[in-house]
């Protein structure tokens, strides 16, 4: 199988680099920036979809689709609320739902966008650091537990099979996003 082993661990700065590239796609339709995002994320989306049960050719086709959506929906990316990897994950997940289940998926009401939705740099950096800490914590979970988390996200577990306690540090990210939401709502008043 053409799925390589785990990528080496990187620092939170890589997350910031992906964010900067995606903002260049969003603001300037920068093809070179997109090409770099593509080279990093497309093989991961393909591997993710294969681990979710898609054949290699279907996964390839869908990965291209997911990346095209990244270009088309770049204007909806909010770096104060998600890393690029998280955002790409949600697109790949939705594609997988369309593909494998044919169910409708209800989404929460959109948040009202303020006239200045741009978060400040410090917030974006802190979110990147939290995200990286989360990733390290996932890698450091006991093997059995980490596999269970991964299987849940590959779509292998039903909601009743998902464990309550993973031991992952979700609290810091939650609090940070909560503040970002409060600011958004406040700006809308």
């Amino acid at each position, binding site marked *: 199988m053409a799925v390589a082993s785990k990528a080496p661990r990187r620092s939170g700065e890589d997350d910031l680099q992906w964010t900067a590239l995606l903002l260049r796609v969003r603001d300037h339709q920068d093809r070179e920036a997109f090409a770099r995002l*593509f080279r990093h994320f497309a093989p991961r989306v393909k591997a993710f979809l294969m681990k979710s049960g898609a054949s290699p050719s279907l996964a390839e086709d869908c*990965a291209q689709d997911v990346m095209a959506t990244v270009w088309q929906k770049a204007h909806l990316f909010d770096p104060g609320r998600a890393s690029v990897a998280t955002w790409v994950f949600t697109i790949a*997940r939705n594609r997988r739902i369309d593909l494998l289940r044919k169910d409708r998926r209800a989404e929460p009401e959109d948040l009202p966008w303020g006239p200045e939705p741009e978060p400040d740099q410090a917030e974006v950096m802190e979110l990147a650091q939290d995200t990286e800490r989360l990733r390290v914590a996932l890698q450091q979970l006991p093997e059995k537990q980490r596999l269970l988390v991964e299987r849940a996200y590959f779509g292998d577990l039903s909601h009743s099979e998902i464990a309550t306690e993973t031991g992952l540090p979700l609290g810091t990210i939650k609090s940070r996003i909560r503040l970002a939401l409060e600011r958004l709502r406040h700006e809308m008043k």
Partner: protein
Amino acid sequence: MHTIAHHLTDPILTAYAAGTLPEAFNLVVATHLSLCDECRSQLAAHEAVGGAVLEDAGEAVMSEDALDACFARIASSPDAPIRVGHNHHAKRKGGLFPEPLRDYVGGDLDAVNWRPAGLGVRQAILSTSKNASVRLLYIPAGAEVPDHGHNGTEMTLVLKGAFRDEFARFGAGDIEICDPNVEHTPVAEPGEDCICLAATDAPLKFSGLLPKIAQPFLRI
């Protein structure tokens, strides 16, 4: 609005983030998320786990011309990238239902097609895929929803009014998640009719005689 006291659980948020909940539960979750920034931010954290899983999922080699093929898809798509500065959405103005629920009902409260469900309770089953079902319940003030246990998980979101059962009080925005084999008797509080959105992944089994006979006809 009443401060939300009962929220979604982590396993449910993981499953929603992973995209593996039955459609009926998705609707209840999305409706609660629309009302609750606390759970919305917790969901973002669960989605960040998905991002980490994606980063570490390994790499599957793409075909050589994949990038060019992707640019070709982008070029042939009608949706050119647009930088949207102002993203205005039609907000619910004075309506009761958040957007995801309105989409399923085809409107707000006045568009619901209620049917009698016995003992003064009314219900409207919403159309979803078959592995779980979801319905709106209208419980008159002070009335009781027949005592029932479940074979599966039951998720009940209060939209208006409040109910109590053996465990707690649930007001507008609150969600009660009952595991299989929980028996409870929700009673609407006096003074205001209660409207709920309830999903289950198994047929409800009523322990009272009359409702049990009625069950096949009610399709619940």
